[in-house]
């Protein structure tokens, strides 16, 4: 699939696009609204990058820009080493497969006809049935679109993105509506495609879902790419590794000593019948050391209890955004109305860091 493994398949340099919006009652005038600002991103063959961020963060806008649905206001991007502007929209789109978020397939047409129509648009010779088999919709090839379930609609949309064996795949919230089995199959398919040299951007607001499939994350907030790099490194750099989950049975342990060390202790609801209590322990400064787990276990056992669970907690999206933007995690992402962009603040994390 990849024409060249040596250089990035996709390189974004300072991509900026802001939606034109009506200027109040003066409907004939347009002003710059929300969008994406100065985005730099690079993908090599086999990369799976998770584009994560809150609603309105700019993920979809960025994917639409790369997919050629509109021209960026400024900045440039290279596809397979060629400048997109010079190569032309059609050449770029021939190498890109785009799966929009939550497409609703309606009407009396069929998945086979829809794919055949898109194959005609691409000028390719794909086999619609083969593609439907790949996404597990072979048996519904000639069913009316109206009869597809939400999960089937997602698979159908995925099939449209895979037409023409694209070198770059842009997937906007692809897991929405998929059951756990389909999600696992989907992750397997993504890995297969990446192994064959495809570069993939998967957007999602669900961090946990992303962690299981992506090599790197790119975090977007208010139209800006605020952090990027391997997930573990981003968490480490943002000092988000101080969260520990401790759950057990029997009497509650006395953790008051931790409070004096600056650890916040949050009691949580138990999640299983084996648990009698569950705590989230957050270190304000420093990090949990391997020896700390032994100390905690000893504290539990000395109180007569048994540890059921003790492991680091994955960072939530709001924690990441809070750490990157310096905002209160609980308030991040609530402000969506403003068209203005927040001051630029980006965290780059190198793989070897």
């Amino acid at each position, binding site marked *: 699939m990849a024409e060249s493994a040596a250089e990035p398949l996709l390189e974004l340099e300072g991509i900026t696009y802001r939606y034109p919006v009506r200027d109040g009652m003066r409907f004939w005038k347009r002003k710059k609204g929300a969008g994406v600002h100065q985005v730099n991103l690079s993908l090599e063959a086999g990369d799976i990058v998770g584009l994560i961020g809150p609603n309105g963060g700019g993920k979809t806008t960025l994917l639409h820009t790369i997919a050629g*649905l509109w021209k960026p206001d400024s900045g440039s991007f290279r596809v397979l080493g060629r400048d997109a502007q010079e190569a032309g929209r*059609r050449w770029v789109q021939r190498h890109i497969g785009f799966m929009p978020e939550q497409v609703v397939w309606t009407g009396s047409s069929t998945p086979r006809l829809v794919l055949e129509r898109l194959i005609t*648009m691409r000028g390719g010779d794909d086999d619609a049935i083969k593609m439907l088999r790949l996404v597990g919709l072979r048996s519904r090839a000639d069913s009316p679109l109206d009869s597809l379930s939400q999960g089937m609609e997602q698979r159908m949309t995925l099939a449209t993105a895979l037409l023409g064996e694209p070198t770059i795949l842009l997937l906007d919230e692809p897991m929405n509506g998929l059951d756990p089995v389909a999600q696992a199959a989907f992750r397997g398919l993504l890995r297969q495609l990446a192994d064959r040299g495809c570069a993939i951007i998967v957007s999602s607001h669900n961090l946990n879902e992303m962690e299981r499939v992506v090599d790197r994350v790119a975090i977007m907030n208010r139209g800006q790419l605020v952090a990027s790099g391997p997930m573990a490194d981003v968490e480490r750099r943002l000092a988000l590794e101080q969260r520990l989950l401790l759950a057990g049975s029997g009497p509650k342990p006395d953790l008051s000593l931790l409070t004096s060390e600056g650890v916040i202790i949050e009691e949580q609801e138990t999640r299983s019948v084996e648990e009698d209590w569950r705590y989230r322990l957050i270190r304000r400064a420093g990090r949990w050391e391997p020896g700390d787990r032994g100390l905690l276990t000893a504290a539990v056992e000395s109180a007569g209890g048994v540890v059921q669970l003790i492991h680091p907690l994955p960072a939530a999206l709001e924690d990441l955004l809070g750490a990157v933007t310096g905002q209160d995690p609980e308030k991040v992402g609530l402000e969506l109305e403003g068209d203005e962009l927040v001051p630029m603040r980006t965290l780059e994390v190198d793989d070897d860091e």
Partner: protein
Amino acid sequence: MMSEQIHPRGRLMTVLTLARFEARQHLRSHRMFALASLLFLFIVGGSYGLSDPDGRLTPGIATDTPYEVLFLVSLFVLLSATLGVVLLGFDAISRRRLTKELAIELSQPISRSDLALAHLLGLWTAAFLPTMAATLVGVTMVHSQMDAWPTLAELAYFLGATALVLLWYSSIQLLASSLARDLGSAVTLGVGSWMLFTFVWLLVTAVLASIIGVDMTDLENQRFDRFSEIIDLFSPNGVYQLLLEDRLTGDATPHLESRFIWLAAALWTLIPALLFTVRFRSIRP
């Protein structure tokens, strides 16, 4: 952006194939059942009723030849077939935009102008095929009543003019649909444009006549006839009627010269289609 060069014949074949997909989709839709019933009721029923030798129409309206009957049937075409275009096309683009199917289409490596043309031809084909079928059945009704057929040239002329008016409406509907962002505005723009030309145009003509000082109380007033024909050039329905009148004989022929009518027809063919294409090229999903 520099565009990839594709052979014109290849482009044309792609557009025609896409138009066939589009037409097929419209023809298979539930709305087509409603449209087909409407067309057969109006066009076939109208042909049968208007060609009835015992029928009495308003004095001055002649139905002596099959073509004269077809000319009157054109009123039913304007009521039903153009409404059919509205039925099929009012949300042809806006629905795709809402369901995000449009984003998939626009991310394909195909010229947006070609895609717009395919949408237009597909909608037009879907509206014209049943209209043509109803017209042909209507002609056999006329024959059964009058024992005469329209000449092949008359039939071809009638179908050609009908094809044109449906093309104009297809362009207008797709343009309206591409401007609409939700179902409500799609209905308003689609049905609104149809009502403007079908029902409100008389009012527009009357208002303009009264402003200019043309007497419209006297039905024999030649000045009003001329004036209303000029105003009709700005309406697809009016141009369609003038085109058909142009083949009538005697007093029924229009006052305007044929070249003006054909020029208007050419402009109605080009301008809405061009506007739709321009709009589609810049549309954001």
